[in-house]
């Protein structure tokens, strides 16, 4: 009924094959910034996953029920970024009330989800590839959720590696961010192996 096969394909594509971080270069700032330990990586990933799924749903509604009927599609960037900013504010308030410990550990990076290009990226990608197709609302949500899952997956893998890297003997000039990038490069090569899958 819902073309489960297609939905599954979209999900796998966005989680593994076209991973947002390792293939599309979206959301690198938190990827490098918050991946120092597994716990905050997981928290950040969860927050992004939630915001992305919500964003996919809300931007679909805004584009189809507000921008299209009024023929103001040119406002799409402004409309989407304001939506995301509002959603992030909401998530921040919820986390602050329900999980103060998580809120403390995420610290500065939570407001930064607003300027996380992965979130706006998922909205724009949905607009370009999925709007206008049948059942596209469900597909949008699947793509948004999948992007979040892929983001979390890459974050977790990276944080695990970086915890070990702390103990490794790395040349002084590569310590910290440079070695994280080189690690990400090696991970991207591994993920490139999935590219023939679909």
């Amino acid at each position, binding site marked *: 009924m819902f073309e489960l096969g297609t939905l599954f394909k979209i999900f796998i594509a966005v989680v593994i094959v076209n991973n947002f971080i390792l293939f599309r270069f979206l959301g690198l700032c938190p990827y490098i910034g918050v991946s120092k330990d597994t716990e905050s990586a997981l928290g950040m990933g969860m927050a992004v996953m939630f915001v992305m799924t919500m964003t996919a749903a809300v931007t679909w509604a805004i584009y189809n029920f507000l921008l299209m009927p009024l023929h103001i599609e040119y406002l799409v960037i*402004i409309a989407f970024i304001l939506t995301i*900013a509002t959603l992030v504010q909401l998530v921040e308030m919820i986390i602050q009330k329900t999980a103060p410990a998580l809120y403390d550990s995420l610290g500065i990076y939570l407001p930064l989800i607003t300027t996380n290009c992965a979130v*706006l990226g998922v909205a724009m990608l949905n607009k370009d590839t999925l709007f206008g197709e049948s059942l596209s609302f469900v597909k949008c949500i699947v793509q948004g959720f999948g992007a979040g899952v892929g983001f979390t997956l890459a974050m977790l893998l990276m944080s695990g590696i970086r915890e070990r890297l702390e103990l490794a003997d790395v040349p002084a000039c590569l310590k910290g961010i440079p070695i994280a990038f080189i690690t990400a490069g090696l991970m991207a090569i591994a993920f490139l192996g999935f590219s023939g899958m679909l």
Partner: protein
Amino acid sequence: MKKTSIASEFFKGFIRENPIFTLCLGLCPALATSTSVKNALGMGLSTTAVLIASNMTISLLTTILRGISSEIFYHKIQKVRIPLYIVVIASFVTMVDFTLKGYFPALSKDLGLFVPLIVVNCIILGRAEAFASKHNIGLSLIDGLGMGLGFTMGLSLLGAVRELLGAGQLLGLSVFGSNFKPAIIFILAPGAFLTIGFLMGFFRHIATLRSKRGN
């Protein structure tokens, strides 16, 4: 005195506070659009245009608001300044997006998603918050220009390395001749991460050498 400060505001973006290699800002577009020097230049200059325009507008806006509004009202506005900045930036990005689509359709297609994503480039919001809201319009212009060109320079450097190793070309011209077998991985995603990792290490190494010599 005034002149040296203007020069230092302008040049700080190139090496000392280079957005990509030193501040680590704006990494997503830096990696995604540096597949060739041409794309890198296009992206860098688009970002520079937005950065200059938003820096100037925000500086002007803050000055005017501070001038005309009462202390309490200004304090209230301060609380919603980030959404305000974002709307300003988003408007300029929309303009740049349509300009590119209209006049440079091929480049616009190559950059794709990353033109609208200039809006979430941390450099722009970062400069708005850290510089433009505290300085006058002239200095903000200089800051935007310097930072934007520093970003463009970093992007082009990345683009040059990747194009040279990945395609054996520079600006579309063959460099090594036809016998050269390019390492295609450098144009693909992994190459971007490796290149920026090693370049960053290189920049940092130079910085350490310099500070050692200073001592």
